[in-house]
């Protein structure tokens, strides 16, 4: 039983990281109906930025988070204004945005190869292998910190959407962009803002990833696909839904070892994705609207 508990806690901690990956993707899709395939590339780029800040300027990754998020916010806004804005809005843009942003991802990857070569990099702080005891077992300090930060991000995001004017405007635009214009909301500006926030969240995920894993320019595709799984599982109904989706995925992956050989636990997420899409396209919990 102690073993199951230990695994469960591992799964919960992992879900923290997974959720942080998915927020940005979910927000952008929920509001703009754009599938940001460059999301994985953004995570990778943020990991590299965190690494550069750490190795060149000795800035601890967790302290670098605000800096990275601000940088990526502007990157996101630029991407929207420069590229995404030109796509047909709404459903018609769906597949095109997919392909366009995929192209952006390829470009980002290539730039990373040119700047950093394909070598694996890792960020090692003095506490990279430190541990924290929870219920008798030890867990990586980094994973606990990542989890905590992820929770904080959820709360802040939720507060922003429900309490602030811009947040409510974002929700209004999600429900109905035309009537939002009628009540004076500058929809275009909001789209840009949302894309910026979504990209900033990808930036957050990238920094967190840099504290946990080694990475190279190909990093991010696995994270991207898992983010899809999470969004589909949790639906876009709420930011909390994404958290739940992350938990479902992480538990499935970790506990799958009792059912399938450990190599195939990597396939769990993908199988889940297809099954859920086929059975309940609106996700396990959510509706299509960002509440």
């Amino acid at each position, binding site marked *: 039983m102690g073993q199951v508990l230990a695994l469960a806690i591992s799964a919960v901690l992992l879900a923290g990281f997974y959720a942080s990956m998915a927020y940005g993707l979910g927000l952008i899709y929920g509001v703009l109906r754009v599938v940001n395939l460059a999301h994985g590339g953004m995570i990778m780029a943020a990991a590299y930025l965190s690494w550069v800040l750490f190795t060149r300027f000795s800035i601890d990754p967790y302290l670098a988070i605000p800096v990275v998020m601000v940088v990526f916010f502007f990157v996101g806004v630029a991407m929207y204004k420069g590229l995404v804005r030109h796509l047909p809005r709404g459903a018609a843009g769906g597949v095109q945005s997919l*392909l366009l942003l995929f192209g952006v991802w390829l470009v980002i990857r290539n730039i990373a190869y040119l700047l950093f070569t394909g070598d694996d990099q890792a960020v090692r702080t003095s506490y990279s292998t430190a541990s924290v005891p929870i219920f008798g077992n030890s867990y990586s300090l980094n994973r606990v910190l990542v989890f905590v930060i992820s929770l904080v991000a959820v709360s802040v995001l939720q507060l922003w959407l429900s309490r602030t004017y811009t947040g409510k405007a974002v929700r209004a635009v999600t429900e109905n962009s035309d009537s939002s214009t009628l009540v004076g909301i500058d929809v275009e500006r909001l789209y840009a803002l949302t894309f910026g926030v979504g990209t900033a969240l990808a930036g957050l995920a990238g920094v967190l990833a840099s504290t946990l894993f080694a990475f190279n320019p190909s990093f991010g595709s696995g994270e991207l696909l898992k983010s899809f799984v999470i969004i589909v599982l949790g639906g876009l109904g709420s930011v909390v839904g994404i958290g739940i989706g992350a938990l479902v995925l992480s538990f499935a992956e970790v506990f799958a070892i009792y059912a399938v050989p450990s190599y*195939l636990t990597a396939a769990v997420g993908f199988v889940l994705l297809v099954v859920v899409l086929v059975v309940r396209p609106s996700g396990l919990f959510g509706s299509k609207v960002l509440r």
Partner: protein
Amino acid sequence: MTTTAQSRRVRLPAWLSMKALILFVVAFGLLYVAPFALALGDYLHNIVGLTFMFMAAGLAWNWLGGYVGQISFGHAAMFGVGGFVAARLAISFGLPFWATWMIGGIIAGLYALLWGHPTLRLRGPYFSIATIGVGEATRLVATYWTDFTGGSSGLSLPIGDGPTKFALYWYGLYLLAAAVILSYWLRKSRIGLALLAIKEDVEAASDVGVNPSFYQDLVLFLSGTVVGVCGGFYASYQAFIDPLDMFSFERSISFVLIGVIGGIGTILGPAMGAIVFVVLQEFLLASYPQLYLGLYGVLLIVVILFEPLGLSGLLMRLARRFGRKPSPSAASGGLSPAASPNASVSDPALTPDPVDPPDPPDPPVGAVGAVGAVGAGGPDVKRGPA
């Protein structure tokens, strides 16, 4: 139905125009004898043979991606299944290569149906995301299934068995010819009209008696089968295949790139895309190999933003610029500009006879009626994600 001029001589099926047939036969003939007439050299000869395969695969991907409008990011799954079935049959049962390709292709097609039938109900990006899941799951399972695929060690075909790389040029040509014929037929026949109707508006299509499920499954099966045969071809060409390479996400992406850059939804665009793909790999990138990812990315961005019909669209524009009005049957043989966008619209859907159309107006990007402009607004108009 025949035209008066030909009523005494040759009866062509409704979807085939004489001009298209002639162009096809001429092109085929030229390509067939080219290696004898030109001194290509072994290397180029082999590369061209492999290109034929990429062209066929691109065309097959496009039936699903362009004609039906469902972008698949997981076609490597069928490519790999076809390749490994073919290799396994050759190694364990000694079947002749063409049989292994056929069987491999059909099994790949059936596999496509297996995962595709339920997922095709999804629309737009959701389907695409599902295909990513299918592709990756297939790769992982195939790598695990050592008895069948050799696991991460892959499978090696016995040296000396099967066709030489030299002969594969012609088998590639046959494969391409079949894919071209199917592309043309699927587009120009009643099936093509049904597909267009489905792409426009699924509900309306079923209201008028078009069964979306049947047609989508048919196209999916054909697409999967042809891509599976390509996998078999590739196995014969390389003589060694392993799951990581055959089922990789990169490979699925290459089909998307070929289709989109070449001209999604057009009849022969993807064939051009394949040529660009290979030419870029071989020549431009030989000098700057570190740029290949970025180059494809830029091309993709440019295509999506400026020319949704890719190279095909570009050529059509140039043709119009120089005063040539592409007629509907120009869509057939060779690499001339693809189907005039409004040809099928101005012909009422029920009379597939090629009739000289009025000058086609420039298809507005995203226009509902622009049947040919399927890369733009076509796929997702009136359809949101599920």
